[in-house]
């Protein structure tokens, strides 16, 4: 007879394996930080450095002096501040409108369109977008970096809000309608407050996109004063690919806000409230 295991006892093998996995996935970031603290211009010591031997914090300052990193940082922040709210609002409005349609056929069609759009490869839209942006005179303006927000950045975001809002019981919305609430009130006063995790999740994912967006500045921005952080990193690399400490310091500066957001909001994204719950519902 097999013994019955206590389901609450921690499983040692599982914990050890998880620690190894965690180590592998944190490793790149960790060695990045260690490398960013090595003094620049000094040849690396032979052998692997598990811990920083020096703390050359001035690398972080040097990044701002060698290239206009402050300018790029400011540009990135501005783009994020404009694009993330637009993208989140458009995705939320779409998700709400989509949820509230009482024509099931129409709902289904919007789902098909979404899935179709999700499957379109990025490269397929570059060329015509270039033409479109030149017609609009948006090439070399911040709008060339913001415009994906007008399409909710990623069709996945509208799908997430739609699935998230479906978790709100119909009765709540219907009784509010009977009390004379307008659709807009339904959206702002009931749907949004009841689905903060969904909205926060979509806002974070759009932040991740605009903060790290490399391809749009590469294709549509030629004016150096409009460059954003990802382009700045590439410039730093092209200036001197051997100056690892400086390149690492710049990379860590760019990674830091994302880590911060992860830290604060991980309970929204990774716990039970999470995206994974959203996907359970049948459409």
């Amino acid at each position, binding site marked *: 007879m097999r013994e019955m295991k206590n389901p609450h006892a921690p499983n040692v093998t599982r914990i050890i394996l998880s620690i190894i996995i965690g180590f592998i996935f944190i490793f790149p*970031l960790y060695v990045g930080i260690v490398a960013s603290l090595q003094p620049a211009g000094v040849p690396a010591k032979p052998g692997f450095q598990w811990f920083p031997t020096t703390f050359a914090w001035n690398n972080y300052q040097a990044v701002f002096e060698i290239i206009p990193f402050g300018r790029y940082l400011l540009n990135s922040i501005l783009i994020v501040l404009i694009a993330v709210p637009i993208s989140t609002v458009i*995705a939320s409005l779409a998700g709400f409108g989509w949820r509230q349609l009482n024509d099931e056929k129409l709902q289904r069609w919007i789902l098909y369109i979404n899935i179709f759009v999700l499957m379109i490869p990025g*490269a397929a839209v*570059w060329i*015509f977008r270039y033409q479109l942006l030149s017609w609009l005179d948006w090439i070399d303006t911040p709008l060339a970096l913001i415009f994906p927000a007008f399409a909710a950045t990623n069709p996945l975001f509208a799908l997430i809000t739609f699935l998230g809002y479906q978790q709100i019981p119909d009765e709540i919305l219907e009784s509010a309608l009977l009390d004379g609430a307008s659709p807009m009130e339904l959206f702002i006063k009931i749907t949004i407050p009841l689905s903060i995790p969904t909205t926060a999740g979509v806002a974070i994912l759009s932040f991740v996109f605009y903060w790290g967006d490399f391809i749009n500045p590469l294709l549509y921005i030629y004016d150096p004063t409009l460059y954003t952080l990802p382009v700045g990193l590439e410039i730093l*690399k092209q200036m001197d690919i051997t100056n690892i400490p400086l390149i690492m310091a710049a990379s860590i500066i760019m990674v830091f806000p994302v880590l911060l957001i992860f830290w604060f909001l991980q309970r929204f994204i*990774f716990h039970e409230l999470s995206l994974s719950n959203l996907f*359970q519902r049948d459409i």
Partner: protein
Amino acid sequence: MKISHQRQYLLFLSPYLVGIFIFIILPALSTLIIAFTKYNLAGRPEFNGLTDFVSILSSAYIRIGIKNTVLFLITAIPLRVAGALLLALLLQKKSPPYGFFRATVMLPTFIPQVAFALICLWIFNPFYGPVNTILQGIGLGQPEWFTDPWMARLMILLISAIQLGEGFIMMLAGLQSIPKYFIEAAKIDGANAWKIFWKITFPHLMPWIFIFIIRDLVFSLEQSLIPTYTITYGGPYYSTTLMPLLIYELAFDFFDFGLASATLVVFYAIMGLIVLSLVNLWRK
């Protein structure tokens, strides 16, 4: 006059629908048309029939790009699917430390891609980088990640394999959608973990794995653009020139929009056929 509620809901949807039409659907459709034209930045597109499609056949550069891409897809997708599934099985527990480990698995996917690629540039540095100093330490030599075509391909594959956060989320979602009582009942009947996995968990996950594979045919390639651009720029000897970088080169370095579009059309027509046959296989 009052607008009916249903009309208003359509109004809520309309900015999004207009947005995806202008910025995604229209550009994708026009690529289909541009493929049949001679078109660069200088002039208007001129219809030139199948010329671009014929030049694909004669271009060694495009051929090697397609070959690399196919090679990448048939290695990266199984690796990413298996990796995401195993990690989700390992880390699906609700207790606190696993929440932290789940977050670490997502890190390489969600931190800015250029920053991650540059960190990888250091990690795979042939002389001083962490990977090679560790390999050297355990007597495995120092692979030339940047100069040997096969090692460069392996490096891009490894980077793609560690960026599996999205698939990981999907697998977690799939696992959570399995009713708990199924597994409880099997346990009471005396089934072991292995049996539970193959008889219950895996069949339940099949739809999720299927969606993951279909999406990864496009998405794993999208993700490859930044590493292949910043770390190797397609080299050495074009060994890491994958589809997105190839299109970028054709369109924005050679300014041959027609040829770039034709290449896209041919490649994604092949992909479409693969997807359709997969869907058919799935239905059976």
